[in-house]
């Protein structure tokens, strides 16, 4: 699990250097969530965005 988290942080750091907030960028962010089953990754990002909007 620790390695998965390290990979995720490294992929996210790379993504943050790229052009952020395009559609492709959001998909990449979801895809980077390797600690979650593939089918839950997009849903997780949508939950995150919704929570951040309503907080």
């Amino acid at each position, binding site marked *: 699990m620790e390695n998965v988290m390290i990979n*995720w*942080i490294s992929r*996210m*750091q790379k993504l*943050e*250097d790229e052009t*952020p*907030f395009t*559609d492709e960028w*959001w998909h990449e*962010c979801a895809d980077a969530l390797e600690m979650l089953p593939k089918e839950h990754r997009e849903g997780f990002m*949508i939950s*995150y*965005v*919704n*929570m*951040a*909007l*309503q*907080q």
Partner: protein
Amino acid sequence: MYSEEYNEKVKLFKDAINFRKPKKVPNLSNFFTWKICDSEFSFKESLYDLNKMDKLTCDFHERYDFDAYMDLGTRNPLAVTDAIGGGFHIFNEETNSINAYDHVLMSAEEYTDFVQDPIAFCKTLFQRKYPNIGAGEMVKSLSAFFEFGQYAQNMTNKFTKEYSRPAVFDMTAAILTPYEFFNSAGRGIKELSLDVRRHQQELIEAMEVYYEVFIKNAIDAALASDSSMYVTDIYTALLGYSMLNVKQFEKVYWPILKKYIDKVVEQDKTIYIFCESTMLRFAEFFADIPKGHVVLHLELDDIFEARKKMPDICLAGGMTTELLGYGTPEKCVDQAKRLIEELGEGFILSQNKMMSFENDCKRENLLAVNDFVKNYKI
């Protein structure tokens, strides 16, 4: 799998919802950040340290011993949004309070953009709300979101297994209505109130799309899952509706809320609706719903009046902040007794408001009420 005590607690609530005579009236905690005021910790250290939040939440249960809890310290995930620049709230350390302020992230003309691609539009709103996200901040925020999710799960497990106290609902079954989304995350209270008059059709179309994309499947999934271990199957909270008159409610709010309720009734399930402010002027909409499906938690309405107008709806609340915060133990117990005797079956005793501020309650009043309720038979 669950202890006998746990099953008994669930039964107390299910009996109340179904108007069966319960062993005793279920006593539900609607305490949120007041728990911090009643603890050894400051607001700031509790909200940013989940270990402290865990401890004070457990201490609260051990002190007051409610039958179930609306909140286990999961209300304010400030670390998630602080990492990316902070949300639209005021955190006052002197008064120990958090207040959100009304804000506008989209124009009325943009309902049509939302309708075309709601998911993309939500991401646009996210960028507008958090315009200055720096390097490493998304990772920090998402990590905090993970941590917060794990905390919520751990607390539910702890209360279920160690304390034999049921969660009121599954976290994924808390499903806010589209109107509340545009109220809190898009247009704000003031602008949305104007949209109801000036852009009603665009608003209705956008809410229909929000329902189809974000809500419908979430309700179906929640109702299809085994939620027998929870007090209710789905949960929603009404706030923005308080700005509407009856005609506006009928046209703008009720059609989608009715979809929630119809699905619940069709599948013989239950929904818990927390009604902020007042709702009695809308009582007629709930009058024909059959017994056993809906709980209305009332904030500012007269609960005795509500019973007369909605005899088949289970009601929750009754203990007011005015009494708990400024009354005496004797007066609080008198009110609890009156509530139990007059409302009896189909009633869940709780606090009218989401208890958040220091003056909402005095410790001796709450101890007196809970001690009385524990032993009082209907």
